[in-house]
């Protein structure tokens, strides 16, 4: 599958915490609702496995990573794959701006989580607009962290 000239949205999908679920939902909101056509996602697990096609996609397209906890799995794995890390967003930062929206559920997102994801998705969409306006080629890939 070719996804050149698309912004790749990669959430950590952390399975142990509600913020991981929020990040995943926000990514889907952007890819399927807010900016379909100019965005796509890649299975983060493919990058963990080192699949060539997934690595190529994050290397050739600007990436926005969304992390649910300070361990920053999405950001670090994209960097390790040599991806074009354009922006990293943290769910906790969005939560700090909306403290009334404390997400509780991990398995199936709850209403607070969905609303929080909506705010986060709007931030991601704004970053997509910025990246597509300036052009993907202007994104400088991050150096590998190890």
């Amino acid at each position, binding site marked *: 599958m070719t996804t050149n000239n698309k912004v790749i949205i990669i959430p950590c999908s952390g399975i*142990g915490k509600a913020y991981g679920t929020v990040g995943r939902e926000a990514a889907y909101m952007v890819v399927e609702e807010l900016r379909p056509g100019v965005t796509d*996602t890649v*299975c*983060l*697990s493919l990058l963990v496995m080192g699949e060539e096609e997934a690595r190529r996609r994050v290397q050739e397209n600007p990436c926005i990573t969304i992390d649910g906890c300070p361990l920053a799995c999405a950001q670090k794995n994209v960097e390790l794959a040599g991806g074009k890390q354009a922006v990293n967003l943290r769910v906790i930062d969005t939560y700090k701006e909306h403290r009334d929206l404390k997400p509780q559920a991990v*398995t199936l997102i*709850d209403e607070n989580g969905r609303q929080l994801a909506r705010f986060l998705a709007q931030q991601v969409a704004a970053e997509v607009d910025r990246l597509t306006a300036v052009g993907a080629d202007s994104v400088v890939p991050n150096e590998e962290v190890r």
Partner: protein
Amino acid sequence: MPDLPDKKVGLVSCSGEELAEGTIARVATRLVLEKLRPEETVTICLPLFLAGGQEERAFARFYPTIAIDGCDKMCAKRGTEAHSGPVADLVVVSDILAELGLPQPNSRRALDEEGLRLARLVADEIAHKVDALRGEAKAPELGIVDLSGAERPAPKVAPGETVCACRAGGLPVTQVEMAWGRVGIVGLQPLFERAYAQGLRPAPGVGEQLLKTVKVYNYVPASAEGEYAKALAREYAAFCQRKGT
């Protein structure tokens, strides 16, 4: 693998974002962690094997681990085996759907009723494998998973975070003083407990004996084995002293 006192089963889901089967894998894994086998299972985020440290990468060597994959690329299995350790069993969502002649889920984002039914089926299969690894046999629990209303905290396991082993939340790590500084050793306390229960007491060679088991769960450089054995003998003597012998 030694029979540790806390014999939990590790679950590693691919959670693949591109496919609905990845969402099924993720939700099914969560159902086992929260509803079906909350006290018998623990999880870790697959990407943490690369983003984390030695403690996280010890996961599959410490827990007998089931990989839950959405598709035949088997990222959870292959990623776990590449960066942590061999998996004890495997569940592939697409295989289960094919075997049962079930359709693909409609959405990768939000599971509808049919998607949730599929997730329950997969969860039941995972729970069955958990029981098999723990040597327990239970009747199939197909269909009993209650998804209505808010998620309920599982007994003795707080919802969400305690089932996750990141930053050693589920992996017991003991800091041990070595000649060059402190080293975190995964699983040391349960290994000591087991050795003590089996009658092992401080004696010449006990450090080397303990080291054999420690090496199952921890990377020990060959050049450091002597120092590890010495430190283990010292720590075990202190452990036995606290036990009163």
